[in-house]
């Protein structure tokens, strides 16, 4: 295998592994803010137990997210030197903003979140939780802005030629608000809320089924269901809006999503199917003219197909893009269905008696994870053969001085370390979940710790 394919495998592998964690942190952040907010409002210690438990889970996830995230920052330079020189002026400022505004906020306040329960008052602690949650979202903002610029470059000019060609910022805000960044950021954030919410739903469904921590688990389940319900519907809108943008800005990618080849034909919408790239045919269940309708709101206008592009200018792995995209959409629909059914039974006040539903929820944690992963595969593979759409080819983005055996070395190294990391993560997460919320609530231990500042009589 050559350096290009090895470097692509390595980047794909490390970024996919990394992306297990940040969506969970972002989503859990929101849920934690709601939980601790409830605690501040009601002063009910049950919410304190809840918050403490999920902060511990958050810390575990966040730790691995940070450790695997630094890898990405290094890899641009180590494996994609030509790319780094080309986009440094633009991508660099987004990364710098991420470090200064987001990451420092998050990591700074995490210490207080974890170790500060007895050292700061409840309000300060809540503020720290809020800052950590916001920090993790700000991170997403800058990273998605940078990636969106690669999809739909804007606010720049090209300077120099050949080895010395580079994109230079001409309008910062146009660069930040490039045509796809708002749609994609919304889509990514909602995907993250779903990931976090379904983790909380899943774990609490498990407790309820096992008849453990039932009182806490029901309350936590409801908080997470609120987040999941709103997010799953919002994701449908955001997804539709995002796809509309892709149709305008990256027609080759949209055509690959649906396996649409002929530009003169109206386009169908597939529920599922299989693309044969050589015969340019899709076999599957379709809504005739569906894609045309979604994009043009009529049934007759043709949609730009893959054949409108030279074969070296369009994605080759059409079936891969098609499948990842469609499975993502199907999962999105399943999440809407699940939260609607749960909402219905909650309204009927019999949610926690539906064993079968809780059973499904206990396993549901994997659904948004898979959808988030597949969505990115679809977006990134669908952009190929470009690393910066229409400007820089992936094959021109590599490091000149790096050889295949060096990438083999690092790829094997990362595979081993990440296997270890994943094993430990699952083991410890499982252990924490098995251990559960700290019960029974020990009045002597928890109350004085927390109310010291409110009640001077307890101070000793």
């Amino acid at each position: 295998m050559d350096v290009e394919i090895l470097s692509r495998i390595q980047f794909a592998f490390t970024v996919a592994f990394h992306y297990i964690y940040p969506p969970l942190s972002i989503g859990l952040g929101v849920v934690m803010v709601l939980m601790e907010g409830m605690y501040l409002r009601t002063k009910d210690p049950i919410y304190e137990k809840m918050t403490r438990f999920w902060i511990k889970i958050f810390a575990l996830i966040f730790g691995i997210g940070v450790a695997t995230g630094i890898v990405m920052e290094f890899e641009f330079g180590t494996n994609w030197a030509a790319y780094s020189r080309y986009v440094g002026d633009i991508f660099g400022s987004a990364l710098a903003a991420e470090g200064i505004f987001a990451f420092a906020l998050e990591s700074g306040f995490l210490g207080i979140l974890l170790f500060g329960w007895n050292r700061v008052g409840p309000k300060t602690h809540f503020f720290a939780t809020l800052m950590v949650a916001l920090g993790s979202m700000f991170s997403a903002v800058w990273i998605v802005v940078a990636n969106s610029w690669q999809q739909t470059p804007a606010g720049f000019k090209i300077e120099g030629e050949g080895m010395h060609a580079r994109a230079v910022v001409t309008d910062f805000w146009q660069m930040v608000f490039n045509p796809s960044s708002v749609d994609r950021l919304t889509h990514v954030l909602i995907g993250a809320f779903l990931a976090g919410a379904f983790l909380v739903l899943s774990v609490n469904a498990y407790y309820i089924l096992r008849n453990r921590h039932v009182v806490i688990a029901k309350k936590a389940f409801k908080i997470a269901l609120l987040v999941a319900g709103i997010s799953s519907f919002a994701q449908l809108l955001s997804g539709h809006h995002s796809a509309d943008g892709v149709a305008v800005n990256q027609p080759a990618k949209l055509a690959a999503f649906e396996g649409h080849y002929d530009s003169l034909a109206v386009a169908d919408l597939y529920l599922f199917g299989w693309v044969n790239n050589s015969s340019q045919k899709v076999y599957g269940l379709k809504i005739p003219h569906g894609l045309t309708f979604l994009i043009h709101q009529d049934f007759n206008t043709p949609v730009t197909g893959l054949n409108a592009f030279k074969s070296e200018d369009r994605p080759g792995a059409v079936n891969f893009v098609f499948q990842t995209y469609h499975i993502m959409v199907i999962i999105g629909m399943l999440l809407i269905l699940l939260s609607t059914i749960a909402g219905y039974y909650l309204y009927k006040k019999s949610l926690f008696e539906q064993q079968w539903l809780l059973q499904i929820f206990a396993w549901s944690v994997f659904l948004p994870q898979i959808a988030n992963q597949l969505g990115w595969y679809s977006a990134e593979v669908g952009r190929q053969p470009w690393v910066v759409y229409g400007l820089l080819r992936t094959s021109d983005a590599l490091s000149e001085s790096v050889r295949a055996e060096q990438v083999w070395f690092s790829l094997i190294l990362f595979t081993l370390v990440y296997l270890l990391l994943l094993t430990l993560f699952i083991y410890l997460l499982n252990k924490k979940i098995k251990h559960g919320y700290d019960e029974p609530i020990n009045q002597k231990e928890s109350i004085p710790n927390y109310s010291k500042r409110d009640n001077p009589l307890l101070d000793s």
Partner: protein
Amino acid sequence: METFLNIPYSTWWYLVIGAVFTGYAILDGFDLGAGALHLFFKKEESRRIALNAIGPVWDGNEVWLVIGGGALFAGFPIVYATIFSAFYELFMLFLVLLILRAISIEFRSKEKMIWWRKTWDITYSLASAMLALALGLVLGNIIHGVAIGPNYKYEGHLADFFNPFSILISVTTLALFMMHGAIYLVMKTEDRLYAKLTVLTKNSTIFFVMMYALTTIATLLYIPHMAEQYKAYPEMFAIPVISMLALANITRSITKRKYLLAFISSAVVIAMLMVMVAIGLFPNIVISTIDPIYNLTVENSSSSSKSLGIMLIFVLIGVPLVAAYTSFVFYTFRGKVKLDEQSY
């Protein structure tokens, strides 16, 4: 080239990156140093206290590396791309060590089995020491010069990184961080662990003083370009003088048991060493050992003025914020370490 106070934006950004890496060396320096000393503590409780002394802050300290990397990418993409791809294996190992160290801290106290804790203690300590050595090796190579040829292509081999001068800088960095870490821990501990650390502080300070002397001689003898700025601007000589005074003040404060003062002094030593390197290199960032025309300088490898201007505004807004909440976190966790139910 746009300027602010008659200094070009690119030079400002060189100073910003220098400041961020200095901040990183001071902050992560003490927790890497504490890690390198970890195996000197024999009792389980001592190890937990040592770990919890850095517990709430190590993650925040590491952020400075992330910011530094981002700042280098943003301001000098050519330097970032050239160095990171040239030092490929070194940076990959560095990343793996960083990950192993982070998971050792996170996972060590999650199980009670002796073999579990021992394994993570050893991983944590070795990874910390090797990270210090690796950082020193990179710095050593930057000071020494790198085989950069035409079109930013690295023309050397992996073995070239392990030249005697860079190895010397590497060991000096470890010694510096061990001293810095020991002083930090001695501030944070009591009783028997404190007594043990007073001894470790003295020994690691002696180790560093020796390495510092050796490094100074070696630099003057073998790396003449580092001294040129000082010949041109003799007033720059104040910097090494301040570093010497700060170093002397460490030994003085240790004897008087004023450890906060000793810690501040060792932070000053680190800062002055970084300033000396920055002055010595300027206006180059990476010196080519093949031909000076391939040197990567502040001028020829920076981002556009427009981009640098935007980022300088970020820094003006962001840095006071980061400084404010970093101080808040350190203030919250001031004083001696007490183990409680939230500890590692």
